[in-house]
């Protein structure tokens, strides 16, 4: 778990550089509330809190959720999100090792559906603005002032692309917009690159299996490439999609959650690939700008089914896949 936190530090550093100190406060609030809610849940379930808190998975959960929501969102947003993630996403299903859905994604989706406005208030990066310092960030987060900092109501690049597409503008017309950076969305490309570096380190240290992240990226890139080949004006290419939104974070930190993903080797490949594909489909054809959370949660629901049909070959058996005759899937 500690190594996962280390792997997040490049991304956090880029965040701070691009968006200011808000993210640090969000992280602090997230971690504290995650620990508090976890302790409460453990106590309610009659389990010794200190033994389970030590494993740190809930800290990672908090950090991921804090990184997923806008850095200047009011304090209650992250607290509510963490509460839902820990209490409902994790403990209602049985606690460590038993959750069907990725808890961080559960929390994020809850926030997205209940407070869509709050969750779309990303700072504008096309202009160079003065971000408030630590104290200023604290004031913003804790008091959520009615007057918005100039440029806070900006959208992410995915959001921009979607709204522009709805206005029937072609990509070549959009290309000059300031939301685009060197190879993908401005600013976001660096964040995703930072996630990629952290993720690559995790792969090298063998903390996560290679099957899930690489199949996710393959699914996303493959689908994007196909779309680009079909019509470059309507669909953006693979590189754009790989470095936009939450793609890299999902690839290395969300999809790799062992509890909610498939467990057989072939199953992991299918799971990751499908999640990537689904992300692309939601981004291009769905109602939300970024489809990562929904794609992951959908695949979580299908993971037991994938496991059932991708069982490894038993020594001595000649048929490729063995189907258990029981009706229980988990």
């Amino acid at each position, binding site marked *: 778990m500690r190594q996962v936190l280390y792997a997040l530090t490049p991304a956090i550093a880029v965040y701070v550089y691009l968006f200011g100190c808000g993210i640090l406060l969000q992280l602090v609030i997230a971690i504290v509330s995650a620990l508090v809610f976890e302790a409460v849940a453990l106590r309610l379930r009659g389990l010794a809190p200190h033994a389970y808190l030590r*494993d740190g998975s809930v800290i990672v959960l908090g950090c991921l959720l804090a990184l997923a929501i806008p850095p200047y969102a009011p304090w209650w947003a992250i607290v509510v999100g963490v509460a839902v993630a820990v209490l409902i996403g994790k403990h209602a299903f049985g*606690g*460590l*090792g*038993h959750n069907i859905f990725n808890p961080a994604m559960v929390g994020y989706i809850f926030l997205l559906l209940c407070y869509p406005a709050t969750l779309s208030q990303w700072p504008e990066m096309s202009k160079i603005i003065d971000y408030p310092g630590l104290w200023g960030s604290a004031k913003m987060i804790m008091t959520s002032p009615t007057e918005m900092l100039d440029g806070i109501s900006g959208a992410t690049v995915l959001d921009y692309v979607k709204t522009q597409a709805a206005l029937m503008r072609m990509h070549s017309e959009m290309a000059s917009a300031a939301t685009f950076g060197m190879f993908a969305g401005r600013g976001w490309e660096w964040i995703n690159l930072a996630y990629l570096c952290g993720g690559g380190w995790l792969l090298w240290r063998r903390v996560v*299996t290679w099957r899930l992240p690489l199949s996710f990226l393959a699914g996303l890139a493959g689908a994007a490439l196909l779309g680009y080949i079909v019509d470059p004006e309507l669909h953006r290419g693979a590189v754009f999609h790989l470095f936009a939104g939450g793609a890299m974070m999902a690839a290395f930190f969300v999809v790799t959650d*062992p*509890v909610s*993903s*498939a*467990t*057989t*080797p072939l199953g*992991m490949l299918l799971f990751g690939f499908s999640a990537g594909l689904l992300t692309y489909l939601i981004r291009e054809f769905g109602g939300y700008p970024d489809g990562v959370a929904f794609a992951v949660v959908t695949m979580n629901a299908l993971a037991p089914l994938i*496991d059932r049909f991708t*069982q*490894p*070959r*038993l*020594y*001595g*058996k000649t048929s490729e896949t*063995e189907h*258990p*005759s*029981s009706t*229980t899937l*988990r």
Partner: protein
Amino acid sequence: MSARQLHTFRGGIRLDPHKRETQDLTSRALPIPEKLILPLQQHVGAAAEPCVKVGQRVLKNDVIAHANNYVGMRLHAPSSGLITAIDEYPVIHPSGLTAACIELTTDGEDLAPELNVADDLNTLASQAVYQRIAEAGIVGLGGAGFPAHVKVLEGTGQTVDTLIINGVECEPYITCDDRLMQEYPAEVLAGAALLARAIDAATCIVAVEDDMPAAMNALQSARPERIELVSIPAIYPTGGEKQLIKVLTGREVPSGLLPIDIGVAVLNVATVVAVHRAVASGQPLIERLVTVSGDVSEPGNAKVLMGTPVNYLLEQFGIDDVSEYRILSGGPMMGTEILNLAAPVTKTVNCILILRRELAEEPASACIRCGDCVPVCPVGLQPQQLYEATRTSDIDLAQDFHLFDCIDCGCCAYVCPSQIPLVHYFRYAKSSIEALDRDRAQADLARTRYEMHQRRISMRLESGPAVGVELADVSGLETNELQGDIRAAVARSNQRRRDDNGI
């Protein structure tokens, strides 16, 4: 060394072999222990029946117990002495329970009668070979303890094209087979040739792990004829019968069947040496090489007489205080903890391992379904699904995931990041299911007997009182032939009935 193309088996893990400590040390002979404890069951199959009495004097190599049936095994006296008891003694078993054993107090003289040496090995018929193996009490010395003559006999009855001699000691620390091949390479090869001829196998392979180069060299120097020497990569558990067959031949033994069913016979290298000694010189199995290793200052291999108590062996190796250690019979992956050190070394003990107790054993936490256990399973099982089934004692689900194909190798438990004792769960489930099946069989038998009983009663009722047992009357007995104590017993019983009914 042959250029045979090797295959790989799925899964497995690389372990630190810990062989350097003992593989270059010559095996030691030990002085004869004062007492030898010989369990009547040292093999797969029914227990042997003693054919000696307490107080009887026996010579070395005398038969002291007979095999009960086809899959039984005889027992021989490892040294001369007096039979002092036939009783329950502690044995090496995970339960720590006792079993029936013959206790032999040695006289130190080691007197033995003349052995029945064979005239010419090459002309010996298969039947004769089988006979001599059975008479010598040889079981599989690799740890399974399956009677060797049964394997050979099954081999003569069926077509065996490949005989594999298993010199692959894949568990860490154990080097007794390594030393055996280094010290008696000619016997290994002679035994292999003998067996190959007896079961008419076209191919005979001796497999050695690649971390045992001295053993391979010794075998090569003994100039094997028509025997392939193959070196295979040291991946645990490549020494397992089914995995070894896959590596050497590419064939897989179908689930539920035996190697013989696909034309392959596998025997441990120590078994083969014992077979050679039995067939060539009539020497029964009374001693074997045992490795003593682990966290000890002077590890090594020893020629140990069957029935030597473990504490005697430890003493000979200068190990006295073992309170901080766990003593295992076997290797660190599949070994059994020895709960009573007075238990004896038997035919299936290949290593006594002394390991320091972990100061704080990491307790198990929840399974996080990481799936690390799946790629390492050499059988292709899904340990995390089996764990789920066995944890909730769900028998049907466990069998859906092929619980009984598990070979207890421990690879899954070794890699589990949550430190779950997976093999322990699987063993629990397997023995529970076997016990339930035994009970089911007993219930079926009881039902049949009940049905016969009912039928007999109804037949008797139909045909009248002439058929059947004459019913005796208690009152009649009381007045006629009752002895005083019977009268007293009846009175006691009646008193009890009155007391029970509050009269």
